[in-house]
């Protein structure tokens, strides 16, 4: 159902640049909290029926329940929504629609962070990001965005306690053992920890969108959804617990390892208790999804709709990367060979009759050269793995379908 302008009866949309609802027809502006509509009252009394209540818990229904059909309150056209969508746009009249029965009572968020990054800003950020990237494939030189959607994602903001006993293995022991072992027990409290409540979106992507400024959270009002897409949460208590436990363990263990600096090798044993407190909150956070195609693959860049933080990797021309590495490798190889040869000759090879100490130093330099070569290659492989991992997320079909499946 759309929320209509009380001056001209046209559909309102939330305008991030103004932070208000805006009527594109007459130019009126309204604060979301000030707009009262019959649909809001209707929502208050509407009870959400679960899928199991309607269709039973037969798993075979899953494929037939791909979409739900509602009617646009503006033009009467059919609105098709998938899975956990809450708000969408009518493909016939283009008006924003919020499916109120989906945000009724049990699943109404407590808070929302409204979009503050506009569509134009989001697009500009991505264009800037791509223009700064290197080794761009030809088709990316003129960016052709296929799709840009602002989606409110469901988040659970939790408070938790984490207690853990752990044994840290640390390098640099005595002559008897090259490791020392240190027991550490402690606890920490976690406050306002955001957990993405959307199964379709990977945890890796959603954690990269952090941080969100929670001080800007406002009491939920569905009018903030107008003009944007949104989803309701579909994670289970178990998934919420596991995500909290994983992040809490990461934070706790990296903190205790910091005490030993780079010598901390690993946690070799641990036991922990993570408890999520009952005062968790349900909120919606804004994210822009920008999709473009490159080399036949969809790429989806995410932008935090509050802070403008970009998450994504830009594809690169793999052939050009390979040849640049090979050619610069040959050039550097020749230069370094001459340099090493010069140093070794100066210090004296065994045949030159110079003292053996200098000769040994020369051989050490050669040894160090090869060691550094391996070290550089290892660090380079780690860096490449990081870029490839983010590129995989950017090009994942799951993410593409999450955005693409929406109408409008």
């Amino acid at each position, binding site marked *: 159902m759309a929320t209509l302008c009380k001056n001209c009866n046209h559909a309102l949309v939330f305008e991030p640049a103004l932070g208000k609802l805006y009527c594109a027809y007459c130019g009126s502006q309204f604060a979301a909290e000030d707009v009262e509509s019959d649909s809001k009252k209707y929502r208050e009394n509407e009870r959400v029926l679960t899928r199991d209540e309607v269709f039973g818990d037969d798993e075979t229904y899953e494929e037939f329940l791909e979409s739900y059909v509602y009617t646009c309150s503006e033009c009467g056209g059919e609105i098709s929504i998938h899975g956990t969508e809450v708000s969408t746009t009518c493909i016939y009249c283009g008006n924003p629609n919020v499916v109120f029965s989906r945000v009724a009572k049990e*699943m109404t968020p*407590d808070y929302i962070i409204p979009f503050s990054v506009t569509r134009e800003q989001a697009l500009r950020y991505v264009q800037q990001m791509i223009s*700064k*990237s290197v080794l761009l494939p030809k088709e990316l030189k003129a960016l052709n965005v296929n799709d840009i959607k602002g989606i409110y994602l469901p988040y659970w903001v939790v408070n938790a*306690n984490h207690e*853990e*006993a752990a044994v840290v293995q640390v390098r640099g022991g005595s002559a008897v053992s090259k490791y020392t*072992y*240190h*027991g*550490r*027990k*402690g*606890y*920490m409290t976690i*406050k306002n920890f*955001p957990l993405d409540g959307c199964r379709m979106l990977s945890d890796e992507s959603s954690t*990269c*969108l*952090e941080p969100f400024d929670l001080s800007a959270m406002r009491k939920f009002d569905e009018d903030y959804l107008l003009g944007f897409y949104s989803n309701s949460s579909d994670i*289970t*208590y*178990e998934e*919420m617990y596991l995500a909290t436990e994983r992040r809490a363990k990461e*934070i*706790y263990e990296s*903190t205790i390892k910091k005490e030993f600096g780079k010598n901390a090798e690993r946690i070799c044993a641990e*036991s*922990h208790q993570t*408890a999520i407190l*009952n*005062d968790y*909150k*349900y909120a919606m956070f804004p994210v822009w999804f920008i999709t473009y195609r490159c080399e036949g693959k969809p790429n989806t860049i995410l932008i935090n709709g509050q802070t403008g*933080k*970009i998450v994504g*990797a*830009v*594809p690169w021309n793999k052939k050009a*990367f390979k040849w640049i*590495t090979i050619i610069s*490798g040959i*050039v550097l*190889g020749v230069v*370094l060979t001459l340099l*090493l*040869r010069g140093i070794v000759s100066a210090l004296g090879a065994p*045949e030159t009759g110079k003292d053996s100490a200098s000769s040994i130093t020369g*051989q050490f330099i*050669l040894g160090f*050269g090869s060691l*550094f*070569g*391996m070290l550089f*290659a290892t*660090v*380079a*492989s780690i860096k490449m793995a*990081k870029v490839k991992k983010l*590129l995989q997320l950017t090009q994942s079909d799951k993410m593409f379908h999450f955005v693409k499946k929406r109408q409008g």
Partner: protein
Amino acid sequence: MAFINFLAALFGAGLGFGLAFFIAATILNKNNNIGDSVGSASLYTGGVVMTDKDNAMKLKDENLYIISHKPKKPDYPTVPTGKGLVERSRDQ
């Protein structure tokens, strides 16, 4: 001398390719990989409070340490773990 020349060429080439790969990967990681960071721990915690430290441990003691320091289950109400979908908390 020929052997030293061979070694210098071998290690020089290794170092050259390693360095070239390192430079190319660093540039690529810096320019094409954006937003690959998560919210820092300080945003969500006030830090870890240590209640016990043992610096004189041996490897064989690790299990003993864990057993004797195992955290207890919380004695206050917490969110249950189960297969049900998470609903709004009534306890805010």
